[in-house]
C-alpha cells in the first residue's frame, strides 16, 4: 500500500500532498522536509528507489516537478514508477500538456483525479479511459461555465 505521495518543485516547494495513513501535522511536515532534501540531493541516473526508514521511496522527475511516493516493504517498485507515470498521463489528458502551474492553481482537480486513481493508497482503476470519464462526468455537473471560469483565486 502506498503510504503517501508528495509533489514538489525543483526549488523544494511542496505542490501536492496526499497521505494515506493518519499522521500528525508535525510529522507530515518533518517527513516532507526530510524527503525533499533526500530526493533533491540525488544525482541524475541514480536509481529511483531509496530505502527510507521502513519504507521505500520511489521518485521520478517530470520537468520542474518531482513526484515522490512512499510504499511498503512488499510493494513493487517498478510498478510504482508506472503509477506515477500513469497519474501524469491522466493529468496531462485533463489539462492538456500539464505544467506545474496547472497543479498549483487547479489543485482541487489534481486531487480529484488522484482520488479516482488511488483510494486509501491502493489502485482503484488503471484504465486511461474510465478515470477521465469519471472526471468528465463530474465536470458536467458544474453549475455553469461562468462559475467555473470565476474559480476562486486570490
Amino acid at each position: 500500500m502506498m503510504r503517501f505521495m508528495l509533489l514538489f518543485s525543483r526549488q523544494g516547494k511542496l505542490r501536492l500532498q496526499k497521505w494515506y495513513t493518519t499522521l500528525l501535522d508535525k510529522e507530515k511536515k518533518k517527513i516532507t522536509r526530510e524527503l525533499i532534501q533526500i530526493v533533491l540531493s540525488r544525482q541524475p541516473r541514480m536509481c529511483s528507489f531509496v530505502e527510507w526508514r521502513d519504507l521505500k521511496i520511489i521518485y521520478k522527475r517530470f520537468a520542474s516537478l518531482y513526484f515522490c511516493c512512499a510504499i511498503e516493504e512488499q510493494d513493487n517498485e517498478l510498478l510504482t514508477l508506472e503509477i506515477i507515470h500513469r497519474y501524469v498521463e491522466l493529468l496531462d489528458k485533463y489539462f492538456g500538456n500539464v505544467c506545474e502551474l496547472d497543479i498549483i492553481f487547479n489543485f482541487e482537480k489534481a486531487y480529484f483525479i488522484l482520488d479516482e486513481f488511488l483510494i486509501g493508497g491502493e489502485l482503484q482503476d488503471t484504465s486511461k479511459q474510465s478515470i477521465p470519464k469519471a472526471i468528465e462526468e463530474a465536470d458536467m455537473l458544474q453549475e455553469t461555465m461562468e462559475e467555473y471560469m470565476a474559480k476562486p483565486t486570490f
Partner: protein
Amino acid sequence: MSRVGKSKEAEIKRINKELANIRSKFKGDKALDGYSKKKYVCKLLFIFLLGHDIDFGHMEAVNLLSSNKYTEKQIGYLFISVLVNSNSELIRLINNAIKNDLASRNPIFMCLALHCIANVGSREMAEAFASEIPKILVAGDTMDSVKQSAALCLLRLYKTSPDLVPMGEWTSRVVHLLNDQHLGVVTAATSLITCLSKKNPDEFKTCVSLAVSRLSRIVSSASTDLQDYTYYFVPAPWLSVKLLRLLQCYPPPEDTAVKGRLIECMETILNKAQEPPKSKKVQHSNAKNAILFEAISLIIHYDSEPNLLVRACNQLGQFLQHRETNLRYLALESMCLLAGSEFSHEAVKTHIETVINALKTERDVSVRQRAADLLYAMCDRTNAPQIVAEMLSYLETADYSIREEIVLKVAILAEKYAVDYTWYVDTILNLIRIAGDYVSEEVWYRVIQIVINRDDVQGYAAKTVFEALQAPACHENMVKVGGYILGEFGNLIAGDPRSSPLVQFNLLHSKFHLCSVPTRALLLSSYIKFVNLFPETKTTIQDVLRSDSQLRNSDVELQQRAVEYLKLSSIASTDVLATVLEEMPPFPERESSILAKLKKKKGPGTVTDMEEGKKEQTEVNGGVEPAVNASTVSTPSPSADLLGLKSAPAGGGSLLVDVFSDAVPATGALAPGSEDNFSRSLDLPGESPASLLVDATLGADTVTTVPAAGSEDPALPVPDADDLLNKFVCKNNGVLFENQLLQIGIKSEYRQNLGRMYLFFGNKTSVQFLNFTLNVSCPGELQNELNIQAKPVEPIVEGGAQVQQVINIECLSDFTEAPLLNIQFRYGGTVQNITLKLPITVNKFFQPTEMASEDFFQRWKQLSSPQQEAQKIFKANHPMDTEVTKAKLIGFGSALLQDVDPNRDNFVGAGVIHTKSIQVGCLLRLEPNSQAQMYRLTLRTSKEAVSKRLCALLSQQF
C-alpha cells in the same frame, strides 16, 4: 491573487489579510450562499496547501457536504479529507452527510462519500459504516465504479479497525469478484482480498484457484486483448502483480491441476523476459519487469521448484549488467533472497565477480549497498576469504554512510566462516586499522571474547597486536584491544627479547597520553595485570602510577584507579595478586551481539513511530564486554576496601563478576570499561560513539552565530532547549547537543542530594576552537536552590579532539528551572555562542523506596489534600509498550512497585527526593488506557511545587 509573493513576508501579510477577510465573511450577519461558501472554503484549502495553518472553516465545509450542487459538495469533501478534525461534533455531522450520500443511489455522490471515508479512515467512521459498506460492495445492482470505491474503502477501514468489520456471508461473494468482468473491479477487489487473506487465510483460501485462473488468462492473452487495461503493450500489469502478491499469502496450491497451471504462468513470464521488447519505451520494460520480479518473489516464496529458482537466478544475472540502474538495484536485492534458498545458492554464487565489480564501480551508493548485502548473503565457507578481502578493500573508499554496516558484516562473516582463527584475528585488526572509527565496541569486545575462549590463538593474537601497536599512529580501538590482550596474554610472547615485558609495557605506555579517558582507564588495568604477569615490571609501573599525572589526575576515575592499583601492588602478597588478577576465564557462549547490532541497524524506526527508533532502543547486551575481575570494581567512596572483594556483587566466591550486565550502571558505574557502557547508551543506534561524523541531529541553524565583535551576552537557549531537557529526564547519559561543529555528550551520576556531571565537548572539525569558554549559570531563584561548581577547561580545543568538563552539583532545595550552559568559542572568523539547558531536573535526586501494597495506599491516603496532588491526562506520543514504560519509570528514579495496584496494567512508584534542606516523599501512579491511547498520571508528594514539577516532567516521557 497571491500567485507567488515577492517575499515570504509579503506573502504572509497578504495571506493574513485574506484569512481575516474570510473569517469576517463566515462570521458576518448575512448568510453566505453556497457559491461563496465554496469559494472561501476553497481559498482556505489553497492557503493550507501553501503551508499555512488553518484553524477555522470546518463548519462551513461540513455545510457544503449537504449541498445538492456537485462542485460544492466536492469541495466540502476535499476540505474534510485534507484537513480532518477529530472534533466529535463535526464527525457526527460529517457522518450524517455521508450517510445521506451513500443512500442517494447517485453513483457519483456515493463515490464521493466512499472516498471521504477512505481518506479520513477514522475509528468513528468505521463504527458508523463498517457494516454498511460490505452490503454496497456485493449488492447486485451496484455500479462498477461504486464497487471499486467500496472495496478499497472497506480495505482502509479494515486496516484501521479490523475489529469493526464483521466477517460474514459477504466474504465468499467478495472472493468471486476475482471473476468479475470489469478489470477495474477485479483490481480493487484483489487488494482487499489480499489484506483479508493475510488475517483469515482459511476463510479465503478459495481465492487461490480463482487468482491462478485469472492470472493465467492475463498472462496468455495477446498484448492488445485487454484494451485499455493493456499498458504499453503489457496486459494488465497492475492486476497481474496484485494477483501474484495475493498468491504469496498462501503455500503452493495442493491441487495439481491448479499448481500445474500456475507453474505454466511463471514459465510464460520467464520466457517473455527473453523475448525482444515490443516497445523501446521504459514504461514497457518497467511494466514487464515488474511482473517478472513479482513472479520471482513468488518462486522464492514457494522455495520448492529448483528449476524455476535457477531460471530466476539466471534472469537476474542478466539484469546485474543492465544499463538501467533501477534494474541492477532490484536484481541485486532479489538475488539476496535467492542466495538464501538451498536450491539457488550455488547459482547465485556464480555471479560473484559481477557483484564484486558492482561494489567497486557503481556510482550510486544505494546500489553499492545492495551489492554489499548480496555479497554478505552469498558468502559461505568456500568464498569467505575472497568476499571478506573484497569488503575490506572496499572499506577503504566506502561511503561514510555505510561503513559501519560493512564493518559489522565483515566482523560477522570473519567469525562465522573462520576455520583458522588467526585469519579471524588478522581480519578484525585490519578492520580496526582501516576503519577504526566505525568499529563499534561490539566488534572489539567480540574479538577479545574469542581470543580468551580459544587458547590456540592467544599467542598469535598477542604477537599480532604487539606488531600492530608498533605503527606510529594507530587507532585508539587498536590500543584498547592491544592493551587488553597484552594484559592477559603478554606472557606468551615475553620470551622473545624484542617483546620482553618492559618493551611491551613501554609500547603500550607510549600510546597512553594520546588516548581518551576510557582507554587510559583500560590501560591502567592492563598495567596492574602486568604487575602480576611480570614481577620485574612492578617498580616501573608503580613509578608510573605514582606520578602526579596519575595520582592527581583531574579525572576522578583515573585518579582512583591509580591510587587503588598502586596500593594493591604494594600491599597485596603475590598470592593475592595472582588470584585477583588471574587470567580471564572463558566467556559463556552467547550469540554475537554484533548480529543483534546489524539487525538493529536494519530496522531504523518506522514512520508511525518516528521518534521511537532513536529514543527507545532497548539496549542489546547479549555479547561480551571485556570484564575485569571483581577486584577492579571500585566504588566512588574512597574508603571502600581496596580489594573490592566485599563489594563484589552476588556470586560469593566467584571473582568473575560480569560487571557489564544490565544491572551494573548502578553499582559498578566506575568499573573499567564503564565508559563503554556510557557510550553504548548514547542512544545513537548504529553510530560509533567514537565517531564524530555521526549525523547531526540538530542542524547548524540552531547555533546562534554572532559576528566576531559580538556582544558578551549569552545567547538565548536554543529553541529545542526544553526538548533536550525532556530527553534526559529518564536517563543520565547521552548526546546533549550536536551541530556541524560541536558534539556534546553527557554522563552523570547522582547520590542523595549530590550529583556529578561530565560533559564531553567534541570538536568535529579539523580546525582549532579558540577562546573556548564554558559558563554555567543558575537564573533567578535557582541560585538559592542549586549549588553548582564547574571546573575550568582549556581555552583551546584542537580539531578532532575532545575536552571534558566536570560539574559538581548540590541540591539545596527543590527546584523547577534548569541551569543554563553557555558555550562560546571562535571558529574560523566567527564567535559561536550557544546556550543550552543543562538536564538537571529535580527527579535526579530521587532515592527509590520499596514498600508493600498496604503501606503504599496508606501513604497515598495521607497525601490527599488537593495541593499535594498533581494530575495530568495526556495522549501517548509513543507506542504504549509496558517494558519501555517500566524502564522509563525506573530511569525517572522512583522505585517501581510490583503487585501494588489492583489493576495490573497500572504502574505505581515511590521514592524520596533528597535536598540539603528537606526530603520530599513522592508517590506516583500511571494508568495507561491503550484503547484511547491515553495516560493518566498522578503524583502525590508532601510539597505542592514538587508534585507539579514531577508531573510536568514525567508526562512528557510517554
